[in-house]
């Protein structure tokens, strides 16, 4: 395996491989800035949703629609994937290639199951008459939760791509920053979900 030889060849690897080069530092800083921009983006979507969430136009409202058990399951899955993602990064910095790939794989699987739950949920809602076009509530709900879902989808594809790269090239100064920022992205998705379950589902259930 390329990874193992890499580890043996460089016994003096720095503790934080992701910021070991200037390129890596740039990447991590740039990605944090991107997350700052994403914060504003989601804030605008949250603002729109919260402003329009009572405009159901006679359709079902959140209290009738939302199933908290399903949301709790989705939340547990996504929170766990955040943990596995950080564990993968820890293993990466220990240059433990196999354990890193294992944790990354679990992260991707958890992400995919979260996505599955979300798709199931959306299909269920559409059958209940809560669609993107049915009301302002519907539009803003799917815009917010759907944008988050799109982020999850992108994250799954991205991390899978990086797993292939890591398999080809091992843990190097080039792959480490990429893996690290993808993990930051994954945590950020989780952060957004925390607000979605609080402000969309829990608040929706309260009325």
């Amino acid at each position, binding site marked *: 395996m390329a990874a193992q030889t890499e580890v043996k060849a460089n016994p003096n690897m*720095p*503790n*934080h491989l992701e*910021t*070991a080069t*200037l390129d890596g*530092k740039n990447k*991590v*800083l740039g990605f*944090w*800035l991107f*997350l*700052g*921009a994403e*914060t*504003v983006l*989601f*804030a*605008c979507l*949250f*603002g*729109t949703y*919260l*402003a329009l969430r009572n405009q159901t136009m006679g359709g079902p409202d959140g209290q009738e629609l939302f199933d*908290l058990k399903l949301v*709790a399951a989705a*939340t*547990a899955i996504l*929170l*766990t994937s*955040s*943990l596995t*993602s*950080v*564990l993968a990064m*820890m293993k990466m*910095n*220990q240059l433990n290639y196999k354990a890193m790939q294992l944790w990354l794989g679990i992260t991707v699987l958890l992400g995919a199951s979260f996505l599955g739950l979300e798709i199931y949920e959306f299909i269920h809602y559409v059958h209940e008459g809560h669609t993107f076009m049915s009301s302002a509530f519907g539009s803003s709900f799917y815009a917010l939760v759907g944008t988050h879902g799109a982020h999850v989808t992108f994250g799954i594809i991205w991390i899978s791509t990086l797993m292939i790269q890591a398999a080809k090239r091992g843990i190097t100064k080039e792959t480490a920053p990429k893996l690290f920022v993808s993990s*930051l992205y994954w*945590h*950020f998705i*989780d*952060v957004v979900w*925390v*607000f979605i*379950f*609080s*402000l969309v589902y*829990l*608040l929706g*259930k*309260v*009325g």
Partner: protein
Amino acid sequence: MAQQPNTSNHAPSGSSESATKHVLSFLLMIALTVVAFALVMYDIVPTNMILPLILVLATIQVFLQLFTFMHLNQKGTAFYTIFMVTGILIAVVSAVGIILM
């Protein structure tokens, strides 16, 4: 600062971290989530108290994510923090502005 252009402000902290810390903060997050769900599912507090409470719980959880999983607690992350805090501030002002219409 010698050979590379200004790298000193992002010196890696060098401390290797333990899985225990991450698992602990993960358990704390789960606990916060459970509390938030319980507040809504069982009538523990009056309805008008629920929104502020779940907002506080969510905020604590986000800071846990930022400072443990995303490592904002480490040295050399000053710029990340400055931009993240600015972003959050602008985000809150914008969201509140839209909601209040």
